[in-house]
Structures are given as C-alpha cells and as structure tokens.
C-alpha cells in the first residue's frame, strides 16, 4: 500500500463510520420530531454511507476480504438504527411498569435522607 493510499483509506474508513453515526443520529431525531428536513438529512447521510463504501471498494488497495467486510459493515450501519428503534419502542411500550421519573427521583431522595 502506498503512503498516499494508506492515508486515503484510513480517512475513508473513518468517514464511513462517521456517516453511519450521522445516519443513526439523524434517523432517530427525525423519527422523534417527525421532521421531513431531518428525514431528508438522514437519507443523505445514508447515501454518503453507501457512496463511501463504494469508494472504498473501488479506490482502495485493500484485499477482497476486507472490502467485503466494509460492505457488510455499511449494511449493518444502515440496518441498526431502524431495528434498534423498533426494539426500543416495543421494549418501552411493554416496560412502562415504573413510575414517572420525577416521582421516582423524589422517592429515592426521601428514602436516602430518612436513612441519613
């Protein structure tokens, strides 16, 4: 691997994970606030993720196995936010057995100070 290719590959790999993270973050925020602009931004990040994976496959001197791993990782980055979101939504729907946060915190403080 040439010195230039080494730096370019490393930066593209880092950018791939940044794009994955940006997609995850924007996907969640867009779902939370139902914002079409944020939804578009999350799709743009997803596009950047795909473009970076394609660039790594086409332009870097990594071996075939590593390129396959990068493609698989990119697919996982695309899948994790919606899957996790669905899982969390289901979990929270079925798990609302605790009292409201403010009440809970108040109870914890009262208990603590009664003991002190």
């Amino acid at each position, binding site marked *: *691997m*040439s*010195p230039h290719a*080494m*730096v370019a*590959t*490393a*930066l593209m*790999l*880092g950018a*791939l*994970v*940044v794009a*994955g*993270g940006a997609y*995850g*973050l924007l*996907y*969640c*925020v867009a779902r*939370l*606030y139902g914002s079409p602009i944020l939804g578009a931004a999350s799709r743009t990040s997803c596009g950047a993720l795909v473009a970076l994976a394609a660039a790594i496959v086409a332009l870097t*001197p*990594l*071996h075939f*196995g*590593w390129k396959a*791993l*990068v493609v698989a*990782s990119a697919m*996982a*980055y695309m899948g*994790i*936010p919606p899957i*996790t*979101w669905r*899982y*969390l939504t289901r*979990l*929270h729907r*079925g*798990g*609302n*057995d*605790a*009292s*409201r*946060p*403010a*009440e*809970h*915190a*108040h109870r*914890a*403080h009262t208990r*603590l*100070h009664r*003991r*002190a």
Partner: protein
Amino acid sequence: MYRAQRLGLKYLTASTVMFGAMIVFGLLASIYYVRPGFMLNTFNFSTAKIVHIDGLVIWLLMGFIGAIYWFLPQELDREVEGIGLAEVLFWVFCAAVAVVVVVFIFVQYGAANEWSMWFINQGRKYVEAPRWAAMGIAAVAGVFAYNVIATTVVARKSTGILTVLIADLVPLVLLYFDAFPEMTNMSQDLFWWWWLVHLWVEATWEVLIGCIMAWTLIHLVGASRRVVESWLYVEVALVLGTGILGLGHHYFWIGTPRYWFAIGGFFSALEPLPLLGMVVHAVYDAGERHLQAANRPAFYWTLAEAFGNFIGAGVWGFMMTLPQINLYSHGTQWTASHGHLAFWGAYGCGVIAVLYLAIAQARGCERLDGTAWKWSFALLNTGMVGMSGALLVAGIDQAFFERAIGGSTWNAYLSMEGRPWFNESMWARLAFGLIFACGFAVLVYDLIAIPKRREAGAREEATAAAGS
C-alpha cells in the same frame, strides 16, 4: 446513608483527585514534545508518561468502585457485607497509590533486578506499580468482589444488573493476575499482557460501565428496570461478542501467527456496531425526556458518554484497525489520539455523570443545574476533542512520513521530530490540554458548590413560601 455509600463518596473523591493528578502529569508530558530539554536529567518524560497513564487507570477504577459502593446498598436495600474491611482497604489503596507516585517522582528507576521490580517499578506498561503495590491492588479488587457477591448472597435477592455485574467481576479480578508473570520471551510476555490491558478495557470495563450506567439511568430519569436490563443484556452480548476477539488487533506485530490478522481485523471492524446501537438508545431516551432531567449535569454527561464512546472508540478505532493501515499507524500519536478520545468517551464521561448523581443525592439536592457545569462540560469536551484532533494530525503525519515513506528507520524518526505539522500539532495539543485543565478546575468548583446551591435553593423556597 449507608456506610457503603459514604465509602463510595470517598472513592469518588479520591477518583477526582487522581483525575487531577493525571491531568497535571499529562500536561507535563506534553511539554517535553515542544521543549525536548525540559527538566533534562531531573524528571524524565517516561516517568511523567507512566504517572499520566497509571493515573488514568486508577482514577477510572476508583470511580467505578465508588459508583458501585454508592448504588449497591440502594439496589439491595441493605448494608454491604464486609464493609469494615472495605473501609480499611480504601485507606490502604490511597496510601499505596501515594507511595507509588512519590517513588515514581523521586526514585524513578532502578537497576534491572528483583528489588527494583518489588519496590520501584514492575516494568510492565500501564501496570508499572511495583509488585508490593500490585498485590495491594489485587487485594482491594478481591475484597470489592467479595463485598458485591457476599451482599447479594446474604440479601437472597438479585437483579439483572447485579447478575451481570457479578459475572463481570470474576474475570475482572482474575485478569489482574496477568500483571504478575515474569517472562523473558517478549512475544509471550506481550501475548498475555494484552489479555490484561485489552480484556480489561474493551471487555470487562465495558460491562462494568454498562451496569453503572444502567443504575444511573434508573436513578437519574427513573428509567424502567425491565427496559434498562433488557438493553443491558443485548449490549453486553454485542460488546463481548466483538470485544473479546477484537484482542487480535494487538497481536498483529508482536510475533504471533498470521491468522491473528484476520481474527483481529474482523472482530475489531465489528466493534463500532454495538456503539451505534448505544447512540440510538441515548437519542431515544433523551428525546423521550425532551432533554430534561432533574439533575441536568449528570444527564448531559450520560449522553456525552454514548456519543464519545462511538466517536473515540468507533470512528477513531475503525480508521486504524485493519492490518494494512495499522502496520503504519500503531505506536504513533494516531494511537494516542484514539486512546485519549476512547477512554474519555467510554469511561471518563460516565464516571463524571455518577459523580454529579451521587453528590447531588448525598447532599439532598433534588434539582441540579446552573452555569458552572455547562462551562466545565464545554471546556472539558473542547479540550479533549482538540487534543485528540491535534494528536490525529501528528499521528497521520508520522504514519505517512516516518513509517510509510521513511520506512521506520531511526533517521526517519529523527527527521519526523522536526517536521512543522508534527510540532505545530504538539503545541496545539498542549494548548487544548490547558483548556481541558481549566474545565477540570471548573468541574471541581461546581462539585464543591453543590451543597451551597442546595442551601441557596432552600432559602429561595422559604422566601417564596413566606411571601405567599
């Protein structure tokens, strides 16, 4: 308040002191890069670096222990078993750390013999504490594990978080014994030494902070235990699934068989995936609470933990983890950059969140906000991102010119030291280090001021009540 919680507060205080010491020696170490003759023959760079890195391990470890002593009695509604012994060992631990630091500063090194190993420096990176102190740390870890396990057994009650914690404490303690072997074969020595360093940091510590964050979320925002525990199981499975064999990325260049390239590269590449899941979870929870919590500093530091972990460990790690890149990047400032941001994100932010939560609960401060914590949050994170960015630039410069073009020769190393990008990055790192130190000073001020704020709040409430 339980005795264990008082002990937890002492550990958290000691952890903050060690955090400060780590910053001081980190700043000192960064000065050598811009002034190579600094304190020549008086205090060597290697010693400053040892205290900086060992200080990091100790402040985080003390923070974890303090957090667990704080949460454990609340979890089981009873005093911790063997608390007297734990209290004694806290002072033994602090005294041992103080003696070791004094020896590192004033004695620094000795002849290559048994005496030096027992009383000056064990000579193993990150666990340099002399053997007597290492045995003391093993005793503290053993008693701590006993406290948690015995209390759970006596209480005849367990929770999902406690079960995960107990399952994690066993390897955590056992792996520390890996600090002791003396091997003359360097490859064999490094092979086992990485079990301690990597499996602590990227496996057992990850689970430990997962348990601590689970308790933090329950106490901070009243998160449902069922939700928190279900998510903890998923995260622990993913983190351990990728993290244990991710160990292989340390085996690339120490003389191990070639198959470690494939194993290390593959599992390390998967390591950012669970971290993305954590980001999604953090955003979901933060959105559900509309970014509001009674204890805002603890809430924001908890959020910073999820994002910092993803960026520091995920992004920075993935950049340099494949063997073709790692060939040039390992051991450069690039690695230091990854180390700084990953430790900060994965552990540092979490310990600070617990500090705010525990101190506010102990002082009866139901609502916590203000200006100081925002300054501290901004300064610490700006300082850390700036330091990591500067080290990244220096590291890429090193990997490019010294390693890839220069072929890692002595001449390439020396010419690298004079390169402008490298030097300017080292100055930038020092400047951002100072910003980070200012953030720490504001953090300490804010933590000390919490009881005063409670009194001021009570006075305001009394005035309002009298007025109405």
